C-alpha cells in the first residue's frame, strides 16, 4: 500500500491559499493600504471591515492582501537570485582546479557561518531600506546554501560513468554541466527552492518587523506584526491575522519542499 504524502497535500493547500490571497489583491481590494478611517479605529471584524481595523482605522484585510504581494515578490526574487548565483558558484568550485575550489568553498563556508538574519540586517542597513534591497540582502544568505548543494551534487555526478564517457568522446566542461549534470540536479534544486522561499518569507517579515524591510505606510506581514504588538491588549486581532497568514505561508512552502523531496526519494532507481 502506498503511503499518502501528507506534506505535499498540506503544502500545496497552504501555498494555494497564499497564492489565492496574492491574486485576490489584484482583483479585489476593498480599501487602499493607507486609507484611514479614524472614526473606526480598532473596530472588530464587521461587514465593512472583514478582519477589523488597526490603530489608524486602516482595513486589516486589505493590508494583508497587499502584504502577500511583498512577501512573494521579495522571497521569490531573492531565492531565484540565490539559486542562480549559488549554482554558478558551486559549479565553478566543483569544476575548477583544486586550489580555486578550496578558495571558493572556504569563502562559501565563511558566508554560511554568518547567521543569515544578521547578514541580511547588516546588508539592508548598508544598502538602505526598501523592497529591492531587502531582496538582495536575503539573496545574499541564500547563495551559500545553493552553492553547497550544487557543489556536492556536482562532485557526486562527476564520479558517474556517463560523465567519464561523455568526456571520452570530447564533451567540454560547460557541455557536461549543462547537458549531463543540470538535469539530474533539477529536482533537488526545486525542493530546496521551495523550502528556501518559506525561509525567505520569514526573513523578509523579520526585516520588516525590525524596520529594515518594507517601510510604512506600505504593508508587510512583519510590519503589521510590529505595529500590532503595541496594541496587543486592546486589539488582539490585529496581530492574529498577519501571524496566521505568515505561518501558513512559511509552513506551506516548507511542507511543499518536503513533499517534493518525498516524491523524489520514492522514485525507483534506474533499474
Amino acid at each position, binding site marked *: 500500500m502506498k503511503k499518502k504524502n501528507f506534506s505535499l497535500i498540506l503544502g500545496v493547500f497552504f501555498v494555494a491559499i497564499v497564492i489565492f490571497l496574492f491574486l485576490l489583491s489584484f482583483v479585489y481590494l476593498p480599501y487602499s493600504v493607507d486609507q484611514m478611517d479614524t472614526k473606526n479605529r480598532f473596530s472588530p471584524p464587521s461587514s465593512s471591515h472583514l478582519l477589523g481595523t488597526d490603530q489608524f482605522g486602516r482595513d486589516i484585510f486589505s493590508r494583508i492582501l497587499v502584504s502577500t504581494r511583498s512577501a512573494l515578490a521579495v522571497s521569490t526574487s531573492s531565492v531565484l537570485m540565490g539559486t542562480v548565483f549559488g549554482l554558478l558558484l558551486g559549479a565553478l568550485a566543483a569544476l575548477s582546479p583544486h586550489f580555486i575550489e578550496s578558495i571558493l568553498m572556504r569563502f562559501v563556508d565563511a558566508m554560511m557561518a554568518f547567521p543569515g538574519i544578521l547578514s541580511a540586517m547588516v546588508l539592508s542597513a548598508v544598502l538602505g531600506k526598501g523592497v529591492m534591497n531587502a531582496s538582495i540582502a536575503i539573496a545574499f544568505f541564500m547563495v551559500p546554501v545553493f552553492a553547497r548543494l550544487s557543489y556536492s551534487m556536482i562532485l557526486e555526478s562527476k564520479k558517474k*560513468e556517463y560523465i*567519464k*564517457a*561523455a568526456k*571520452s*568522446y*570530447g*564533451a567540454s566542461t560547460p557541455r557536461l554541466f549543462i*547537458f549531463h549534470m543540470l*538535469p539530474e540536479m533539477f529536482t533537488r534544486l526545486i525542493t530546496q527552492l521551495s523550502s528556501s522561499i518559506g525561509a525567505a518569507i520569514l526573513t523578509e517579515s523579520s526585516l520588516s518587523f525590525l524596520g529594515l524591510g518594507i517601510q510604512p505606510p506600505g504593508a508587510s506581514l512583519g510590519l503589521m506584526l510590529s505595529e500590532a504588538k503595541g496594541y496587543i491588549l486592546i486589539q488582539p486581532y490585529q496581530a492574529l491575522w498577519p501571524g496566521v497568514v505568515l505561518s501558513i505561508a512559511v509552513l506551506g512552502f516548507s511542507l511543499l519542499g518536503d513533499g517534493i523531496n518525498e516524491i523524489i526519494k520514492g522514485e525507483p532507481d534506474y533499474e
Partner: protein
Amino acid sequence: MILEAKNITKEYKVRGRKEPFVALNNVSFSLGEGEVLGIVGESGSGKTTLSEIAGGLRKPTRGSVLFQGKDISEMKKDEWREYRKSVQFIFQSPKESMNPYYTIRSILSEPLTINFPSMSKSEKEDRIKDMLVRVGMDPETTLSFRPSHFSGGQMQRIAIARALLLEPKVIVCDECTSALDVSLEAQIINLLSSLKKETGVSMVFISHDISLVRYISDRIMVMKDGVVVEEGETESVMSEPKHEYTKTLIETSFL
C-alpha cells in the same frame, strides 16, 4: 605503434601521510595498429588507471603517452581533438555509462554533434541506424527509448555502437563484460572480435579474467599492485607463464 605509454607513474596523496600512494609504478606498454592488448590483474592493480591515462582521461604524475608518435601533453587543440576522437572507451557498467535522462537517439547523436558540428540531422540518423544494425540492435525498437528500457547485454551493444560511431583507431574496453552473465559475455566478445576484423581497430582489453582475455588478445600484460609482472604473446604467456602470479591467475581461472 598507434598508442604508447612510457614509464607511467601515478601517485595519489594520502591525507595524513607523507608517502603518497603509488597506483602505477613505471609502467610502459605499446599498442600496434590492429593489435589487441589484454591487460589482466586483480582489482586495485592499476589497470583501469593505466587505461584512463592512456585514453587521456587522467594525467599521469610522471611519464608520457604517445599517440601516433606524438606526446599527448604537447598536443595542439586540433591534434587533441583528433586524439580524443580516435581513442574511445567501453566501460564496465553499460547502465551507468549512459545518462538515464536521455533517449538512445540523443545519447548516440551527442558524440557526432560534438565532433562533427556540421553534420546534418539526417546524416547522423543514418550513421546511428547503420551502427546499431552492425552491433545487432534494431534501430526501430531502440532509438526512442531510454537506457532503463534495455537489458545489460543490449546496453553494452549500444555502448559499443557509441564507441564505434566516431570511427576510432583504438578502443579501450574496461571490464566491459564483467557486468554481464556468461552467455552474454561470449556474445559481446564475439561481437567485438568481428568488429575488430571488419574495421581493423586496435584494442586495449582490460579484465580480471585471464581466460577471457586470451580469446581476444594478441598480447597479454599482467599487472599486480601497479607494476607489470609479465608481458608477452598470448600463447606463450598462457602456455609458459614465468611469474608466480600469472600462474595463479591461470590456475584459478579454470576452476
